[in-house]
């Protein structure tokens, strides 16, 4: 594969994308997990799928948007879905988690309708569901790099506000932090990263890349910065290792990455147990 990396552009695309996603997903994932929004990632990924199905449908039936990256439509849907979740969370103040199944089932419903109207797609859709090493184009890579820069700048600039908002929302609002605006920006970032991650890990497994490395990290990290650091390290290990394995074994990369992430999680749980026993 090492030699393949130099030879084939698609491998380079997949690897570079994977390395970026391995940073982005767990980085945002830390905030998602500590704010107990893990399921939002799931809801948004299903809405993204609807966007992609819609884009493929337009391409197949009407011939428009041909050549336009389905990622754009996926991102658009994901962002719109995020806006809807926020609206619904305000409507159901005391049942905020209700917004998630509503949006999630809406996403799947729309996807199913688009797919049936299109009379099925070629294998393309499968690669969106479970991820694919060969599907990543140079254009995808550029888009994802752009998202990466945006997200990292936003996190660095808004770090202390995001931290306060995550730790204690009431205190954030009482100290005059523009909580609504920052939460809104945050949800938009999540929507973008989900759309970006889907090429490699697939819609169905995107949320796990945001949560599993964080779940492992929380077991052993001290402090918030360290939690972020370990999450990114674990995420990166799972992605790079998973891509290598999937290439050699010809497995779906999404599944391989997620299984590695679960192994890392188990390892950290065992590590913690053993360390506690030694003390």
């Amino acid at each position: 594969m090492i030699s393949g990396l130099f030879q084939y552009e698609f491998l380079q695309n997949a690897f570079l994308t994977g390395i970026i996603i391995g940073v982005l997903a767990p980085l945002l994932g830390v905030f998602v997990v500590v704010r107990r929004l893990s399921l939002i990632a799931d809801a948004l990924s299903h809405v993204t799928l609807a966007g992609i199905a819609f884009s493929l449908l337009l391409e197949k039936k009407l011939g428009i948007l041909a050549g336009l990256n389905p990622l754009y439509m996926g991102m658009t849907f994901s962002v719109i879905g995020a806006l809807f979740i926020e609206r619904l969370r305000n409507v159901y103040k005391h049942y905020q988690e209700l917004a998630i199944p509503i949006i999630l089932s809406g996403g799947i419903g729309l996807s199913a309708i688009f797919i049936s109207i299109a009379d099925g797609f070629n294998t393309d859709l499968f690669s969106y569901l479970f991820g694919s090493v060969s599907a990543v184009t140079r254009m995808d890579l550029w888009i994802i790099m752009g998202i990466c820069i945006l997200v990292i700048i936003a996190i660095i600039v808004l770090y202390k506000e995001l931290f306060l908002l995550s730790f204690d929302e009431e205190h954030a609002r009482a100290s005059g932090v523009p909580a609504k605006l920052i939460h809104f920006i945050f949800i938009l970032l999540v929507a973008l990263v989900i759309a970006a991650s889907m090429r490699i890990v697939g819609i169905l497994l995107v949320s796990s890349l945001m949560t599993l490395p964080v779940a492992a990290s929380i077991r052993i990290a001290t402090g918030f910065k360290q939690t972020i650091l370990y999450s990114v390290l674990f995420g990166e290990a799972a992605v790079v290792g998973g891509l290598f394995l999937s290439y050699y074994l010809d497995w779906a990369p999404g599944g391989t990455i997620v299984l590695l992430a679960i192994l890392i999680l188990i390892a950290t749980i065992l590590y913690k147990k053993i360390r506690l026993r030694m003390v």
Partner: protein
Amino acid sequence: MENSNPIIKIDHLTYRYEKENVLEDISIEIPKGAFLGIVGPNGSGKSTLLKHLLGLIKVQQGEIRLFGTDIRSFKEWDRIGFVSQKANSFNTGFPATVFEVVLSGLTRKIGLFRFGSREDRKKVHAVLESVGMREFENRNIGELSGGQQQRVFIARALVSEPELLILDEPTVGVDAQNVNQFYDMLENLNKELHITLVLVTHDIGVISDKVTHVACLNKNLHFHGSTMEFNALKEQDLSSIYGHGVQVITHQH
């Protein structure tokens, strides 16, 4: 003289929540340097009143002035510190160190698009020292006892050097010995650093020798005055506010 320039001035504040008045025609002035204790039964609107002062609830009817400015145009929230009733029921699994939590108290003061400086870190260390928690700065907040966590939350409120500190039942879940230490600390803040304090509590007896003013709230303001006047109140008057069976144990030194 000091009354001419109250830190907080509330005029005829009424707040309705779902067709019911939670607060009714509250008027109160809190002078600079006061230590006000607010007492009242559960559901009497104490937290609601404090939330108004923190800008968490919009004024429906009446007026509030903070530091002489109408609360609707008030912007200097870093002059007010806050320790909430829920501080001890936060997500204890949250992966943050004591240092990080206290530093977050400076978020507003540092400002949007800016980063904390070495100066800010020094402030965090100093305030942790003053509440006796310096040695725990690198521990995760969830690993501390309830009383220790509460000190950390006090430190977070104090780190921005507020002129006014608002506390909503800060001693829930803190054991008796630490509660006394805690009130001593508050008294110190008030007397030495001249921080104005507004404290909601159920420990009327314990505070009656620490606070300078008392307010009894039960939807309406039933009593507001100096601690001496409060202590002179008969027990019947208090139970008319609290309902039956309230025992007020005053501290005698």
